[in-house]
């Protein structure tokens, strides 16, 4: 089915020569990597593999008229067996120079690099810092409003996005499914000279299906359906806050983002994530360093609720309460050093070594070495 859509899109873009203004852009990221010794990191192990972070994409955009344009992006990711997915498909209406409205499947502007998350050429890393960027949804089916302009020397941009999302993500080492409904995302950004500051606030009604945790919730619901409901993530309000700062002096740059994720009425621990990165631009070379952290290591929630249970049920209730929360508890730091080399204005080579320091499970400490080629056209 997906392949048919791609074939159709290509066929239609080829068979409409009259629509002269169909722009075709694309990008390719070929990334190979391996871990030190027996460590495993994402899909990497101690054999060289190219399938984890490699991807290839084509984007078609065309102007329907002066005000309306259509954009579709198809991407084939190595970690999805290079199956072609329709990543984005939306139409944009330019209300004015300052204001535009897009509708369809589009990227949620949660992070500084959300928009070009997949375009390795647009940043210095091999991939944006996972501690911050590994959120479970990046696209919504919905709409986005962009408003931007200048006030004197200050450039400002505001975005509002709303929609629904459905995605798989990794939780406690296993694949889980996330549904996000009625997501609301506000972003504000100001740029003055080399300074950029960015803030984002978002919320959605979240439902998480986790094969890892379902048995525990089922068990708990036999003792207390209400406690089981409280722990499970069923249309619970999830909140996301982020702030980003950047200073780019041309010869060097430094930037960082801090994000906070909460799913208060559930087993899900609060997340606090950040990264700080900086680099030098020495002609074609950009050496850089990054420190990042993901912290889901919070105090256990709802322990006081067990007091309401008869004494003989308390151990079982406590076990379910603590067990579900401990299963996903994590805290790690990552330290990376790398270099980007610009071969020409649409081709870059990169190498990056990352040390992962897991504060909850030392067995997950790991080293990862990756090299990549990024191309855009």
């Amino acid at each position: 089915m997906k392949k048919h859509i791609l074939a159709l899109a290509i066929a239609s873009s080829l068979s409409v020569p009259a629509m002269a203004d169909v722009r075709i852009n694309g990008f390719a990221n070929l990334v190979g990597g391996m871990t030190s010794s027996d460590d495993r990191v994402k899909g990497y192990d101690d054999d060289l593999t190219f399938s984890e972070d490699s991807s290839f994409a084509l984007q078609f955009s065309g102007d329907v008229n002066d005000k309306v344009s259509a954009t579709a992006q198809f991407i084939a990711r190595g970690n999805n067996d290079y199956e072609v997915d329709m990543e984005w498909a939306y139409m944009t209406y330019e209300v004015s120079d300052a204001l535009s409205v897009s509708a369809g499947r589009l990227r949620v502007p949660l992070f500084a690099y959300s928009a070009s998350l997949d375009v390795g050429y647009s940043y210095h890393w091999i991939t944006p810092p996972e501690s911050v960027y590994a959120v479970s949804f990046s696209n919504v089916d919905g709409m986005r409003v962009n408003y931007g302009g200048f006030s004197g020397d200050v450039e400002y941009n505001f975005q509002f996005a709303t929609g629904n999302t459905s995605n798989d993500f990794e939780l406690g080492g296993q694949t889980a499914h996330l549904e996000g409904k009625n997501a609301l995302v506000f972003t504000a950004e100001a740029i003055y000279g080399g300074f950029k500051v960015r803030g984002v606030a978002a919320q959605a009604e979240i439902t998480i299906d986790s094969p890892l945790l379902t048995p525990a919730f089922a068990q708990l619901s036999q003792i207390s359906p209400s406690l089981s409901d409280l722990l499970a993530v069923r249309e619970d309000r999830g909140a996301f806050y982020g702030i980003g700062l950047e200073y780019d002096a041309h010869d060097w740059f430094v930037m960082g983002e801090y994000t906070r994720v909460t799913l208060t009425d559930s087993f899900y621990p609060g997340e606090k994530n950040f990264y700080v990165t900086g680099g030098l631009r020495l002609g074609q070379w950009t050496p850089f360093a990054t420190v990042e952290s993901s912290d889901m290591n919070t105090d256990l929630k709802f322990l006081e609720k067990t007091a309401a249970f008869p004494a003989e049920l308390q151990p079982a209730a406590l076990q379910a309460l603590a067990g579900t929360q401990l299963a996903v508890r994590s805290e790690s730091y990552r330290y990376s050093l790398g270099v980007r080399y610009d071969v020409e204005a649409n081709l870059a080579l990169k190498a990056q070594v990352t040390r992962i320091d897991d504060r909850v499970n030392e067995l997950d400490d790991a080293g990862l070495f990756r090299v990549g080629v990024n191309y855009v056209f």
Partner: protein
Amino acid sequence: MKKALSVMAMALSLSLPALADIAIVVNPANSSDISDDNIKRIFLGKEKRFSDGSETQPVNLKEGASRDQFNEMILGRSSSQVSAYWSKLIFTGKGTPPKEFTTDADILSHIASNKNAIGYVDAASVNDSVKVIKTL
């Protein structure tokens, strides 16, 4: 301040004698005030109107010494950085980079026949069909 900058720019251009002068040119009918900041914003797709309200249509030379020099001196970025900048906008549907032309002559004839066009060429190529608003 501006004088200091232009002295610095001159010092820079003197220390790089291999570089030719670059002229930034518009259609002779274009009488808008265009500052360095305006030029920068126009070529980064951030300013879509001239001061008289007409639409800006920047055009680029294809990759080469003139474009590198323009990018460094006006946009304050290397050509690779400029292309990384556009790759962000293209893949968000937020912008389209300036049209590209191969030679100075192509740029000049395009600008001569398009009232809203703005571009740059080697200062030695300039002729009467266009108006020079700045020379680097």
